[in-house]
């Protein structure tokens, strides 16, 4: 009887993991729609191509070597299916942990849950470099990012490996529940390195230092994308509890869902009120970025804050993201979708908020962790982008940019009938 209960718990936790992974996978659709909505229509096909291709690249590279670098085990996921003693091993592990102990689930479900996080980090990059980067240069970067750069810092954080054998972040009081830093700030750091080498879109900044708006083509798509991300985030944070199969963990999961939602709501309203006060108008794109900022802010620790604290944390993220977007524009760092602000600046905020509610973490640990992630991902990305730039270039020609990367890279328009009537 005891074995059967353990088997049921194993089945439930595996099932929960898989469903949450599927929810996070759907965030790829959210990023695709958000980015497609915030670029001009002449760059729609290419951004969609990039989003689907980067997801596929992430899955392949994480399978080839990423997962092994991050969590150990064989390359190409060899042995992940489990051997003949699979059932006996799992039952032994369950007995050792006890019913209310650490989670025991199928190894392939762990890969499935982890791989969609890699893709999320990579999706963040695609929006920031939109409308001017060469498609294939981007995809080559995706290979390095998802196969090596991300798994390295993932190993130091979630797997507890020492950073180049020097220090262990967990011992210093670093805690990042679902990846405000490990996933979101990492993606934004890679994006920042790319944007710095790539330069701004033509026409974005005037010679006199003025900032020109380049409005997105389709705000309904951007809104749909934001809602999809908001929904997928329940898997992102909820699944990161790693276990559902007892009362304590079920409660933790419910609290994480509640707080994740509360933070998004707080972020959205804080951002739109900030935009209204600053610009005199209720800027929809800021509202959307605000909801996402709320989600990023709570991701580092969605289980310990109260619902009110989660709403406020999200709200701080929502205010911060508006000022961050304006500041980056003043610095002439052109980010069409606000990814560096939403995921990078607010990701850092999320890390720094953790010690307020989680006694197991410390400010110094969070700062060292954030620096470690940033320096590694930004530095490694900068080198990678620079090599790609030297070998094959990363930017399309001025004429191609004017005509749109849809035609230059994909040879097709997203809305051919609108222009050929």
């Amino acid at each position, binding site marked *: 009887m005891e074995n059967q209960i353990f088997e049921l718990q194993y089945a439930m936790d595996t099932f929960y993991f898989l469903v949450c992974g599927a929810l996070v996978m759907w965030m790829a659709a959210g990023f695709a729609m958000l980015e497609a909505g915030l670029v001009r229509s002449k760059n729609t096909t290419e951004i969609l191509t990039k989003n689907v291709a980067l997801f596929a690249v992430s899955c392949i590279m994480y399978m080839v070597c990423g997962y092994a670098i991050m969590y150990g085990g064989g390359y190409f996921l060899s042995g992940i299916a489990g051997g003949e003693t699979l059932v006996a091993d799992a039952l032994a592990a369950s007995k050792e942990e006890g019913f209310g102990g650490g989670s025991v689930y199928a190894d392939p479900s762990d890969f499935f849950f982890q791989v969609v996080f890699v893709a999320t980090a990579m999706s963040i990059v695609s929006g920031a470099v939109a409308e001017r980067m060469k498609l294939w240069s981007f995809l080559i970067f995706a290979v390095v990012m998802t196969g090596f750069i991300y798994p390295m810092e993932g190993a130091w954080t979630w797997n507890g490996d020492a950073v180049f054998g020097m220090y262990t972040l967990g011992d210093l009081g670093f805690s990042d529940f679902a990846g405000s830093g490990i996933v979101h700030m990492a993606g934004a750091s890679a994006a920042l390195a790319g944007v710095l080498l790539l330069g701004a879109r033509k026409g974005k900044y005037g010679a006199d230092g003025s900032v020109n*708006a380049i409005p997105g083509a389709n705000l309904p798509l951007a809104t749909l994308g934001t809602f999809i991300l908001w929904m997928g985030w329940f898997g992102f944070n909820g699944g990161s509890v790693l276990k559902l199969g007892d009362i304590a963990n079920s409660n933790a999961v419910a609290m994480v869902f509640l707080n994740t939602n509360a933070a998004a709501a707080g972020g959205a309203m804080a951002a739109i009120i900030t*935009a209204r006060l*600053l610009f*005199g108008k209720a800027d929809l794109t*800021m509202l959307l970025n605000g909801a996402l900022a709320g989600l990023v802010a709570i991701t580092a620790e969605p289980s310990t804050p109260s619902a009110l604290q989660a709403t406020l944390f999200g709200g701080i993220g929502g205010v911060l993201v508006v000022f961050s*977007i304006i500041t980056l*524009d003043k610095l002439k760092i052109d980010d069409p979708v606000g990814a560096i602000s939403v995921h990078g600046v607010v990701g850092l905020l999320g890390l720094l908020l953790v010690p307020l509610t989680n006694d197991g973490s410390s400010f110094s640990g969070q700062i060292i962790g954030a620096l470690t992630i940033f320096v590694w991902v930004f530095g490694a990305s900068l080198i990678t982008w620079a090599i790609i730039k030297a070998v094959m270039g990363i930017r399309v020609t001025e004429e191609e940019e004017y005509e749109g990367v849809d035609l230059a890279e994909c040879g097709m328009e997203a809305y051919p009938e609108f222009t050929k009537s």
Partner: protein
Amino acid sequence: MKLVSAIIKPFKLDDVREALSEIGVQGITVTEVKGFGRQKGHTELYRGAEYVVDFLPKVKLEAVVDDGLVDQVIETVTKSANTGKIGDGKIFVYPVEQAIRIRTGETGSEAL
């Protein structure tokens, strides 16, 4: 025969069409156009940055009418397209040399 070409605010199109039908105008042609006059463009806001929309959407409405009807058409369009605010548009009148109905070959006023 004269060609009356009126550039008006898009939301006034229905009013103008009805008013012209009432005074006996048999046919009109409508084109969506963009442009600016003394109204100039206007500014919009996106993520905190202002940008200027130089060309505003308008509707160009064209009707060929008998010489005797021209003044009445001008008066009707002026009245029905008027909002009193800047950007109401303009009316231009051109002479028309000939008109032919393709189906029957009728010409001149018969073809209108």
